[in-house]
């Protein structure tokens, strides 16, 4: 088992998520991309924990999951609220704040 592959996969997923955040316009999709980024980190953490031979990384992954979940809750709440007032979840529609 080569840990590098996992790390590469993780980096790839992270990049996909990052690119997704930058190019997608729907708030929910952007949000999902962020979650993808967080979870790719989990993959990294677990892989590193494996390499290290300790469980620290796995424990950290737990915490990351918690944070991701909390983010989901808050994020959904915010997106929902804007969705209700605007009937749209596209970021492009949120354009009042421009200079």
């Amino acid at each position, binding site marked *: 088992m080569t840990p590098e592959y996992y*790390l590469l996969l*993780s980096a790839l997923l*992270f990049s996909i*998520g*990052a690119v997704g*955040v930058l190019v997608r316009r729907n*708030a929910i999709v*952007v*949000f999902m991309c*962020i979650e993808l*980024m*967080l979870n*790719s*980190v989990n993959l*990294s*953490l677990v*892989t*590193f924990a494996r*390499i*290290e031979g*300790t469980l*620290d*990384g796995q424990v*950290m992954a737990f*915490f*990351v999951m918690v*944070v991701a979940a*909390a*983010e989901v*809750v*808050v*994020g*959904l*709440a*915010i*997106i*929902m*609220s*804007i969705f*209700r*007032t*605007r009937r749209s979840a596209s*970021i492009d529609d*949120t354009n*009042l*704040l421009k*200079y």
Partner: protein
Amino acid sequence: MFGAQVTALSPPSVDYTAMLPVLIVLGAAAVGVLLEAFVPRHLRWSVQVTVSLVALAGAGIALGAYVPGAPAQGVTTMVDTLAIDAPALFLWGTLLALSFVALLFIAERTVEPGGAFVSQAALRGAAGAGGSVSTREPETTGGRDGAAPADGARGMQTEIFPLTLFALGGMMTFVAANDLLTMFIALEVLSLPLYLMCGLARRRRLLSQESAVKYFLLGAFASAFFLYGLALLYGYAGSVRLGDIATAAAGSDRSDTLLFAGFGLLVVGLLFKGSVGPFHAWTPDVYQGAPTSVTGFMAACTKVAAFGAMLRVLYVGFEGVSWEWRGILWAVAIVSMAVGAVLGLTQRDVKRMIAYSSIAHAGFLVIGVMTLSDSGLAATMFYLLAYGFTTLAAFAVVSLVRDADGEATDLSSWAGLAKRSPLIAGVFTFLLLALAGIPLTSGFVGKFVVFSAALGEGLAPLVVLALVFSAVAAFYYLRVVVVMYFSEPAAGGASVTVPGAFTTVTIAAGTIVTLLLGIYPGFALEWAGAGGFAF
């Protein structure tokens, strides 16, 4: 197979005395949530305000009681996850003081009848991280700018108080976090309530919600970067403790790619929180869209927290490899100052303008952070204290200038304000001068100490650039002064609402501290220079 041959674990030692301020704040936040649940609506505001203020005062007292006897080297507690050392204590004090004042500002409800926050927020229940919208109370007023809320008389949304306390607890943990994981958790604990708070404005709901979404998406994006950096550093050092990372960086045969990639990503996350250019994209929008009191809280306290953490990360974790990253921070500092100073020139909205000012100030702070010297540490922390009070008071003043549609933040409606209310105009001028860094204000002393430290470390070109950008930025501060004093009052322009006691206290406190630190900064400098990081 779990449980086989498990040796008994000794419980980690916890220095409760040292941690007491944080514990009080977080405990009060939890109590606040419960109060929200059980206290009848008409009592909530007073109860919440009392509890929050008492908690902050209590935390302050606990801090004050701990400081004289605190070990000079600081202590690390909770399995070394928290380092409560001199900088942490100073920043805690700063945060507590700032949020006490900010909380008063948030609690104000005479300026905007019923308070600045929606009473039927779509975000309501999400306060408790559970997210509940009672569907029996459909939101009819939501999204209609300026539509007079029928339920205005029913008071403001008091969830804002526990949210503030949670954010504050996160910030306090953030600046004391001795390992990156704790730091990450604290980062989220401080960010998530802030995201929500941004969306709670009673007026201009769309703007407010939009700012919340933007802040949230970009904030989460940045924290993902921070997290990935954390993972890579874990891979590099086998630990996320800052001290271990420093040790590993000092002598490790592992791939430096991990170290520097990890460091870069980590710092991006931190810079984002500190609204440092070029990671500032959210700042103007969020500052403008969020309720002004929240903006004030955010501008003051988040900056303290972000830079406090940045100081710790760089000083403790990465001092040894500073030659690798200083160049990058050079660029970052310059970009931030340039963005803040130059783009600020084009702003017509006072809140946006202060936002750009905060970006410029972030650039100055980065210079302080880069020094990596004791004097730089003290200087940066002093700057944070000074800037926090000034900007908080500035936003409090902004919240007073209103027209028929609520806050009038457009510069044009500020014309001739000095004629209508010379006192407020004078105070705001003073605060703007402090932001510009005119002597006899705390802003100047802050700049002075930071630049002294930077020159001492040979960052002369950067300092000169910073001074030039200060002058550029002074232009837009002056423009406000010009509009207020030298322009004729516009018909239908804004007028100054008579502030309630709370806002008065906020403005007074901010102004007095700004003046005090400008005239007699010695004591604060002494606190800030009390000692270095423990690790």
